[in-house]
């Protein structure tokens, strides 16, 4: 009976994973197709990769997505962490105002945030392009960083920072030597969320970017009107890059843990 149940569970999980990975495998296979077809595999070729590397807009979209995600992550992590520390010490009124505004940003449908920013930039006559795109990404990433850091700050013992100040630390030292080391993990996970949100975003980017500035999402959206198998090659590269990063991130701690346990056993 127990055995049966295990098999049932495994079957359900297997079916779900097939559903999740089918399109991904499909894209990878058809990126090596020798014809334009998306349904008949006619033979192996690398022509779509060659076309991709020759396509300037496509290569630029990879550059823009990566650059914006990296800069937006760096800025929003720093600003978000500082703001979250300030938030944890603030009085009720300002705390409530900032928290509600952050919630508004996170819960609002993306498209509403997007048109809000579009109307905002156009009212100020800011030219749409890299600058507006980057600023928009920073704006929507910060609340997620704060959401990740704030719960950890609430658990901190205030007395430790207080003690640091009593022992002659400047406030900046108390921040960098006492508070930040204690919330390091939450900051890292906030940064990861920010990076994914930025790299994955389509809706907000679509409304605030300008002519000639496409990230991967807006490029794919604009190029689906006609069949363009180079998009398969582009997708394959992204899938490969993300899989490598995720596997390294998840396997390295496992290996480290195993090594630590081994060392403990030997000691």
């Amino acid at each position, binding site marked *: 009976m127990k055995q049966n*149940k*295990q098999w049932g*569970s*495994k079957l*359900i*999980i297997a079916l*779900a*994973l097939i*559903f*999740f*990975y089918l*399109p*991904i495998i*499909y*894209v990878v296979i058809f990126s090596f197709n020798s014809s334009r077809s*998306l*349904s008949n595999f006619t033979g192996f070729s690398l022509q779509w990769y060659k076309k991709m590397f020759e396509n300037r807009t496509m290569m630029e979209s990879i550059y823009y997505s990566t650059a914006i995600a990296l800069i937006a992550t760096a800025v929003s992590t720093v*600003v978000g962490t*500082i*703001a979250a*520390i*300030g938030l*944890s*010490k*603030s009085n009720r009124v300002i705390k409530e*105002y*900032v928290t509600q*505004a*952050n919630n*508004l940003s996170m*819960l*609002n*449908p*993306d*498209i*509403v*945030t997007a*048109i*809000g*920013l579009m*109307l*905002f930039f156009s*009212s100020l006559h800011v030219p749409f392009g890299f600058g507006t795109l980057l600023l928009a990404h920073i704006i929507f990433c*910060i609340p997620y960083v704060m959401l990740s850091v704030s719960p950890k700050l609430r658990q901190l013992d205030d007395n430790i*920072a207080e003690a640091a*100040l009593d022992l002659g630390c400047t*406030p900046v030292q108390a921040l960098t030597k006492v508070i930040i080391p204690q919330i390091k993990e939450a900051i890292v996970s906030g940064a990861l969320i920010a990076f*994914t949100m930025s790299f*994955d975003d*389509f809706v907000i980017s679509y409304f605030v970017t300008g002519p000639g500035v496409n990230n*991967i*999402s807006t490029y*794919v959206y604009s190029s*689906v009107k006609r069949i363009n198998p180079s*998009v398969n090659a582009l*997708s394959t590269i*992204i*899938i490969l890059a*993300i899989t490598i990063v*995720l596997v390294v991130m998840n396997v390295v701690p496992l290996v480290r843990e195993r090594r630590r346990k081994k060392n403990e056993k030997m000691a």
Partner: protein
Amino acid sequence: MKGFRRLLYPYAVWVGAFIVVPMLLVMIYAFTTSGNSVLTFRLTLANFARFFSDSIFISVLWRSLKLAFITTVICIFLGYPVAYAISRLKPGSQAMMVLLVTIPMWINMLVRTYAWRGILLETNLSPEAKVYIGMVYNFLPFMILEIYTSLSKMDPNLLVAANDLGCDNRKAFLKVTLPLSVPGIISGITLVFLPAVSSFFIPKLLGGGSFVLVGNLIENYFVTTGDWNFGAAISLIMTIVVLLSMRLTKHFDYSQED
């Protein structure tokens, strides 16, 4: 220590400028018509009257809500067994399966949706069916992870107790496991229903333009026709409808807890 509160001040200004003001702008645009300058605008309900007097707009809104609702229901019924199955595995394999469910979510949403195009291109499915597949594909992982989280927090001794007290497995599931996983289902609903109502690239990519949702309407008025006032009014109506339906779900959550 109190001095640290000053760290929030710049961000409080930032939030006002970049979150509050843009939202106010959407409202101002929704309650005005084009041709008004910022200084001399006159408030009007014309945009809303136009929306509610045209049955096409109402039917598009209704279709979006229906699509989001059915997508959410499908995600619950497909996601629950998967989450439950994962929670019954050995702890090590659980972490592995969660990772495997998470990996596709890291791949750009547009790229994932594009991937389905090739598979669905030669099938005879209706545009509507294709859109549903794309929606469920994109949102199912959120539902699985939320339900799994609430199931994995459950104390297994509760089931042993239920069995000892005379519940068979089916009854123990219905009386113990399922009620305890309701918070997971609720947060899953938030993560699926909310973005599903306003999604517009999945219908465009997979439905081929013949399946118009409220998100496509907004896009159309902002990008193609340039009637920003009407577009803003549509997004305001959508936001209000979404918030009301979320209130309803939250209410259900609280009545469960009582």
